[in-house]
């Protein structure tokens, strides 16, 4: 009796297993297919791509990559993005952690109001602010400058960063902080030497989240960083490259340019995939 039951269970599991795997594999092909296709096409001459889009590369043609690197300046755009991010990410993490820590761990008048002010920013679409923001930057002489873009990235990353870190700082035990106060440590010392190290997991999660968000930011630079094509950040550069190749008709170079933008991300992602996945989804669970 018990054996038959066990058997039916096992077959049910088996059928479901085949069913599950076939769907899962199908989506794997759909998710990875376009990327693999681009990586392969990057090694094929333009004429081949047009005559047979699904063909495999006949050999390793690096011309596309040299073309994309020299004519499309992918290296330059990457460097621009890195420079901006080195400032904006540091600033976001520092300012976000400072504000969140004070809101989470100190009692003062207006605490709730400040918290609400920051988290309320989550409900406002960036597009509502876009036009006035353009003129705010213009008035400060920050339009089309790196400093301007850095400050704007910081400002628009703050709502989520503060929201996330406040709840994180609240989960940290208070005993360590009290002990440090008794030992006569100053407030800022407690923050930098005790609370920041304790908050490391949270800081890493939100740091990855902000890194990818700022690295991939498209609309803010498209509006606020339009001075000279040389200052374009990577997403702008790729969009420009597509327009350019549409006229010049060299898809191989376009795919090579896109591949060069994908590969570093791919390497970092596969290396740190667990942290990246938790970093990007942690915020939504809270």
């Amino acid at each position: 009796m018990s054996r038959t039951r066990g058997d039916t269970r096992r077959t049910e599991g088996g059928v479901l297993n085949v069913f599950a795997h076939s769907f899962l594999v199908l989506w794997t092909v759909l998710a990875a297919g376009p990327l693999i296709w681009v990586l392969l096409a990057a090694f094929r001459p333009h004429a081949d791509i047009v005559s047979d889009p699904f063909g495999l590369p006949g050999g390793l043609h690096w011309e596309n990559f040299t073309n994309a690197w020299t004519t499309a300046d992918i290296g330059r755009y990457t460097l621009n993005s890195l420079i901006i991010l080195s400032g904006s990410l540091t600033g976001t993490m520092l300012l976000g952690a400072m504000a969140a820590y004070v809101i989470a761990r100190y009692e003062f008048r207006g605490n709730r109001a400040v918290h609400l002010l920051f988290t309320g920013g989550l409900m406002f679409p960036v597009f509502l602010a876009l036009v006035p923001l353009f003129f705010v930057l213009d008035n400060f002489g920050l339009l089309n400058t790196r400093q301007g873009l850095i400050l704007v990235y910081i400002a628009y990353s703050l709502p989520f960063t503060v929201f996330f870190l406040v709840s994180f700082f609240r989960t940290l035990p208070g005993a360590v902080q009290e002990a440090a106060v008794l030992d006569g440590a100053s407030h800022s010392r407690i923050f930098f030497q005790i609370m920041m190290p304790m908050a490391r997991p949270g800081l890493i999660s939100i740091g990855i989240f902000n890194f990818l968000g700022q690295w991939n930011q498209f609309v803010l630079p498209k509006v606020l960083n339009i001075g000279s094509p040389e200052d374009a950040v990577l997403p702008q550069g790729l969009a420009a490259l597509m327009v350019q190749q549409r006229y010049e008709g060299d898809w191989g170079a376009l795919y090579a340019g896109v591949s060069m933008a994908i590969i570093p991300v791919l390497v970092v992602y596969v290396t740190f995939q667990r942290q990246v996945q938790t970093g990007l989804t942690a915020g939504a669970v809270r």
Partner: protein
Amino acid sequence: MRLGHRLLLGAALFLPPRLTPRRVRDSRHYRTIDQYRFIGWFLAAPLVVYLVFVVSPFVQAFFYSMTDWTGYTAEYTFTGTANYERMWNDDKFWEALRHSLLLLVFAPLITLSLGLFFAFMLNAGGRRRGGQAVAGVAGTRLYKIFYFFPQVLSIAIIAVIWARIYSPRSGVLNEGLSAVGLDSLRQNDWLGGRFAVWCILAVLCWSFVGFYVVLFSAAMSAIPHEIYEASLLDGATRPVTFFRITLPLSWGTVRTGWIYMGIQALDCFALVSIMVPEHGMDVLPSYLYDKAFRDGQAGYATAIGVALFAVTLLFAGLMMRLARRERIEL
């Protein structure tokens, strides 16, 4: 307290602890002063950046939406609700709104359904080993790596790749249709005509499914195995298990995810702006962008922004309301 002493205590708010005079540090108020000084200094920089670049533009937006400002010069006149009246009669605005709403309805529906389905398959679709009630499939981690990858790619990269896939000549979609003998389904203009919004919808869903698979997997693995075992003893089938146990117990995550996806669908600017050729399909953000930075109608553009904000608020409010359920404590 003497006035001088009071001033000194006040001044201490602006002095670093090291430079604070001994007299103040010995005061019985010093602990409070020290604390407020710390709070003030730590909040100052974030607050200033936030107020200048986020709060003030938002507030200004509501004002400018009632002016005829072009954006080219500093001059404008107050026109009251003229922009909103114009919007009411603007067919292109309604079309953009229709497209945005269509994405707002379908993108979360499709993406979250697929995400839930795949997450359930990953967590409960495997062969049971050693009398476990549920088991994940083999290679769960590998699947997640592949699924999640589009999420870390720049939206600009995704848009460029998909623009090429939809390309009428030598695009993968058209050539693929021919390859399987469906020549009749080939389109000369996937991104220019009536299919455009559906093409955008497909890309939007494609890029976010992996995110939700990972998110829901985490929520599902938090459900205790005993509950599955009990339901299995009662003879529940997989679909029943899913709808009676898995879904209700991950409901909070589903709701948050739904709102998040809706906000992504309302944005969608990068996809439309890179993929769709000029004068093609518009969504609210791309229409706003054109009005503000191409046509020199900054006032009207901010009015569109206010409309977008209203849609966002309505959507979030509606979702919070509709999706309210008894919270199930485990």
